[in-house]
């Protein structure tokens, strides 16, 4: 059943590579947050306790509710962000790049799984997520999309943590989530200021500093 969630995660990445709408990016991010919630909660179903539920519920709260709400209210609506993501690369080529990277990641993770302790499908899903997050940051111009790309990378890292069965102490996980939320909060403020001082909200505006 966990594989199903990982496959859905991969599908959400493909959709991310296909769509050209800022709104759709945000929706995919919400979907990923919900998927992460299920992935985390799945092994806990047999031994339910309030303590073990804190982490998944926090994930759901932060990744699927608080961050998306913040981005939608404070940035997309307030700044009237145009719905199109500005891209350096044609969408079709972006999708091709995504597909080929995913093929490479899946094949290599399958090879790795033979002699190390990794779960092949979650590992491949996590790594593709990280790579596609990076592509989003590299090839898109809009700052808000960069933020979502960063969040996608963070999701990928979270998934990676699950796939390598790394047991971080509980408090550290919570603190990391809090850190991410504050990062997004600060980035939101920065985008707000940037769009009011530069009157554009994409990366082309940021070229004042160079040597």
């Amino acid at each position, binding site marked *: 059943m966990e594989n199903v969630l990982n*496959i859905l995660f*991969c599908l959400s990445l493909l959709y991310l*590579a296909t769509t050209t709408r800022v709104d759709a990016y945000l929706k995919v991010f919400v979907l990923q947050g919900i998927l992460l919630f299920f992935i985390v909660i799945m092994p806990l179903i047999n031994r339910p306790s309030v303590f073990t539920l804190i982490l998944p519920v926090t994930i759901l709260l932060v990744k699927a509710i608080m961050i998306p709400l913040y981005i939608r209210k404070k940035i997309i609506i307030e700044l009237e962000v145009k719905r199109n993501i500005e891209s350096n690369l044609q969408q*079709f080529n972006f999708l*091709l790049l995504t*597909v080929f990277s*995913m093929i490479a990641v899946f094949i290599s993770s399958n090879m790795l799984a033979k002699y190390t302790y990794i779960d*092949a499908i979650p590992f491949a899903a996590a790594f593709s997520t990280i790579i596609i997050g990076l592509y989003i940051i590299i090839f898109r111009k809009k700052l808000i999309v960069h933020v979502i790309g960063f969040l996608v990378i963070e999701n990928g890292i979270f998934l990676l943590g699950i796939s390598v069965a790394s047991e971080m102490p509980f408090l550290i996980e919570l603190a990391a989530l809090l850190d991410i939320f504050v990062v997004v909060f600060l980035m939101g403020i920065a985008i707000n200021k940037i769009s009011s001082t530069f009157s554009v909200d994409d990366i082309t505006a940021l070229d004042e500093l160079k040597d």
Partner: protein
Amino acid sequence: MEKLISVLIYLIFIVSAPLFIGIVNKLKSRLTGRLGPSIFQTYFDLKRLLRKETIYAQSASFVSRIAPVVSFSSILFAGMILPIGFYKPLISFNGDIILFAYLLGLSRFFQILGAMDIGSSFEGMGAAREATFAVFAEPIYFFTLGSLAFIFKFTSMYDIFHSISLNDPSFIIFIIVSAISVFFLMITETSRMPVDDPNTHLELTMIHEVMILDNSGLDLFLYQYSSYLKMLVYATFAADFFNPFNVQNHIIGFLLYIIILLILIGNLVWIETMMGRFRMKNIPRYLLFAASIGILNLLIYTFFNK
């Protein structure tokens, strides 16, 4: 005896092809608040075409004469490969999934040839578009059905669809995802709404319809009929993903098939009503998206389910 039933079923299949489109059109009209034509309107159209005289352009060669016939009959053949309900199809052998693809390819090829043969610029444009999108649509079929073939180690359509079971829960997702892919394929191949608008009146925006502008009478009848048939063939193909589910009974299987087709019609109508047409340059992207779903399935299930 079983052969006889299969033949009978296939005959019903052929005859009911225009009805399928008729239902779609009717529902679409009702959903947009119009009364709409009768669901048998497609039959009347076909009847009218039969009465008309067939006229060829002066520049037309023999290709234009044989193209409609070849196109129609190859689709007729392709339909025989598909399992309908729980019945064994008329043609079934190892490797028929390839034959199925290429019969449909042959049909399209002759349609394109027929369009190019006349030398009209509009039809040439339509042919070029049809060929382009076919390039992107073909991988969808092969990756989706190819992954299925890999998993079950069968290469016959009947065997593949009859080994789908629900024992592994991750399979449900797989089937749904594949069906989405195939649904994309169906929309593209049958020139339905988000990809191509069958009711458009401007030649520049047409893809499929523009290719048969110069045909009339019996030829047009064949083209129309083959497009109805193609629709039902693809719909059946998509429905087959859900169909068997270990139902061993013939009658229940057939009923299930009908129900799934109706659900499919519902989806199709919903999408056609709700979505605007894609811009022409964006279509390859969506087709690639559907193909990449197939690639993902292939990756996950060939590498990991050993």
